[in-house]
């Protein structure tokens, strides 16, 4: 187990270096210069040259890369000239909103998705299974921005039950979290259903049934645990994607999270913020994947002992 953790951590470090290098190159490959964007079209050439020098952009790319890597190793992500503050401060300011949104969406998706998956997978081909399958296809098919706008129209504009946008109270969280959770619910429900159907046809399940256990005991005591292995893996990957990918939901609901910060930073060529945010998101994904791997190992002793 320790070996596995060490191995995963080393892979994680490699991933972080790759992400750091890739983002460094990508932002600089994009057309548009940070100094020009910052000063606007009214600036004269001398002003732009001065600002480029003060941002260190007049140095060779290799030198910039090496000093950037050195700074990252010291956890110094630089100053955002645009925001007039350390880039990581700006990123960390937005993190709580993203965590609130992602966590609520994930918990909602896991609870609802697992329940629906179990209900559908418990009786494959039954009415409930067909209804759940149809619903999950619909949930997965609706574009997030459309779902968000529909929820706003119904619950904020027509029913006046919930605020249409913004942050501050728990009710502000309901619509964005539900919007974000919808496609995730569909993924978990479908995966749980498929996995459960497969598991329920395993020999050990038949043995459990032949021992006289009730369907519930078979399901909860034997089948569910094994059915969860692919679900846990997918949840780990999906949560990581949600952290950085909630930008559409953030825009629709004016939710001040990391996604919209990164989009603003990319549009303004704010290199330090883009780099800091990307590395933080990469770090979160690495940690979540490690946690998912550990959980899977906990669920499946063969992985723990290195048998598979």
């Amino acid at each position, binding site marked *: 187990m320790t070996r596995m953790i060490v191995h995963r951590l080393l892979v994680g470090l490699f991933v972080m270096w790759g992400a750091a290098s890739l983002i460094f190159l990508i932002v600089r490959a994009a057309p548009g210069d940070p100094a020009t964007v910052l000063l606007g079209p009214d600036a004269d050439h001398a002003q732009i040259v001065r600002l480029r020098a003060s941002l260190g952009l007049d140095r060779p790319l290799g030198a910039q890369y090496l000093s950037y890597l050195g700074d990252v190793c010291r956890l110094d992500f630089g100053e955002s000239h645009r925001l007039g503050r350390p880039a990581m401060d700006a990123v960390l300011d937005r993190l709580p909103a993203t965590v609130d949104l992602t966590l609520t969406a994930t918990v909602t998706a896991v609870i609802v998705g697992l329940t629906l998956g179990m209900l559908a997978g418990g009786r494959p081909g039954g009415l409930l299974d067909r209804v759940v399958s149809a619903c999950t296809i619909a949930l997965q098919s609706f574009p997030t921005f459309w779902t968000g706008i529909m929820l706003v129209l119904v619950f904020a504009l027509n029913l006046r039950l919930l605020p*249409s946008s913004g942050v501050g109270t728990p009710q502000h969280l309901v619509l964005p979290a539900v919007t974000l959770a919808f496609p995730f619910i569909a993924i978990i429900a479908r995966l749980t259903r498929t996995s459960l159907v497969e598991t329920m046809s395993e020999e050990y399940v038949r043995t459990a049934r032949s021992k006289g256990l009730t369907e519930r005991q078979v399901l909860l005591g034997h089948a569910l645990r094994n059915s969860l292995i692919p679900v846990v893996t997918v949840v780990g990957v999906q949560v990581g994607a949600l952290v950085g990918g909630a930008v559409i939901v953030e825009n629709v609901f004016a939710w001040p999270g990391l996604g919209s910060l990164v989009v603003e930073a990319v549009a303004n060529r704010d290199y330090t913020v883009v780099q800091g945010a990307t590395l933080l998101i990469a770090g979160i994904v690495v940690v979540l994947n490690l946690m998912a791997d550990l959980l899977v190992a906990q669920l499946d002793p063969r992985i723990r002992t290195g048998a598979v």
Partner: protein
Amino acid sequence: MTRTRERRRSRLVRLATTATAGAALLAACTTTTGGDDTGGADDGEVTVAGTYPIESLDPHGAQGASTGTQLAAQEIFSRLVKPDADGTLKGDLATSWKPNKDVTAWTFTLRDGVTFSDGSALDADDVVASFQRMTGLNGPNAGNFPGDTMTRTSATEVVLHSPAPDASVPGKLGTFYVLPTGVGKDDTAFFNHPVGSGPFTVAAFTPSESLALVPNSKYRGTRPAPRRVTIRDIPELAARLTALRTGEVDVVWGIPDDQLAALKGQKDLTVRTVPSSAEFTMWFNSSVSALKDAEVRRAIWQAVDFGTIIRELYPETGRPADAPVTGVVLGHVAQQPVTYDPKAAKAALTAAGFDFTRKLRLQFANAEFRPFVQAVVSDLQKVGVRVDPLEKEQAAFTEDLLALKWDINFQQLATPSYDAASNLGRLYTCAAERMGYCNRRLDGVLAAAGATADKKRRTDLYGQASRIIWQDAVGMYPMSVSIAYAWNSHLTGFVPDASGLPDFATVRTGGS
């Protein structure tokens, strides 16, 4: 059979319990006033949704020229002079201002007895220190004052010296805010709780989320009417308008034409449009061979039916422009309208030897202008002029704009100083190299206009400059832009602002 029924009943009971718990949770979470939790009440609180985020409160820094920072700064800090809602310049900290004979120095007399929100006195030292801070930080506003310096002549007088005659100094100072002496470069502590001398102080600020303002008890003027003003950032227009309809916000502006009809139909909303200093401006790159000839540029202008395009796309917020700057700008003089005549345009292009096989690059930066640009491209196609519309990201657009990597450049160009000097005087000189156009006679007229403080003379000279620009078709100037505002009718005292920076100090809710 009985066991199955019992199991089903048990499941139903569980389902019902879950549903009830869910409903109770939702009910607990709901707003008790039907969504009208912030606006609409007679509570003296005003909530508005700005058009751009407020990312920083530092008016001298990198964000100093951004609309969000300007909107916040005008409520927190004071300026020497400031434009009124209609663009007329009036004193803020300054009671009077006058230039020297050759307009290279402007003397500002300061109001007596002004204090910052912490009770400390504001004097000439603070004004000079603020000017030095602004120019020293090399932010976008510093570019308005290249080589300018400011000195203190007494506790209530400062002088701004320019290296060359500059009659537009007062107008340009509309973006210069006075902070207490000693504020550092990235002084996070100060800008978390800024000390200013404007009508409001900051109660809470979260960048790109919201800014809450409360009246500054030390403010020299009339105490602001609202008890609290909250400026929220709602990036999506649809979400802003929904929030207005639900009463979550009280004021929204920058509303496009296609949304205005629906808002006008709502009884509890007031909708107005105000002429602004912004104008649709389509420069020709006169340095490319195809567009060097003024005859060609004029013919292209003549080939586009701007009147119809404006009527169809901007019936409320657009009207045909009659000069390179709009009517609210000092120096505006109406020119002879360019009549749409595709036949004459085609003939003129042929006579000028225009290369119809060449595709012109028309660059623009914002998706909201796409229909307008496409309509222009379509009209030009009818006379055989092939145009490639290039929608670029803002960063790439600005870089290419400065590098002249375009044939026609579309911009909504504003003149925030309300003075033609910062538009015509700055952009159209040979030295500016902004559109490959160089006319020494125009340079002379613009220099003369910048060197006199006499408004009548300046208007006359900018009129001459406008005529040259217009007749030489340095660009096409199709449309003057109005800004559309909508606000809840329970607000009184709200004045729509021509520059999109409304002041909320005079706004009253029903009972405040």
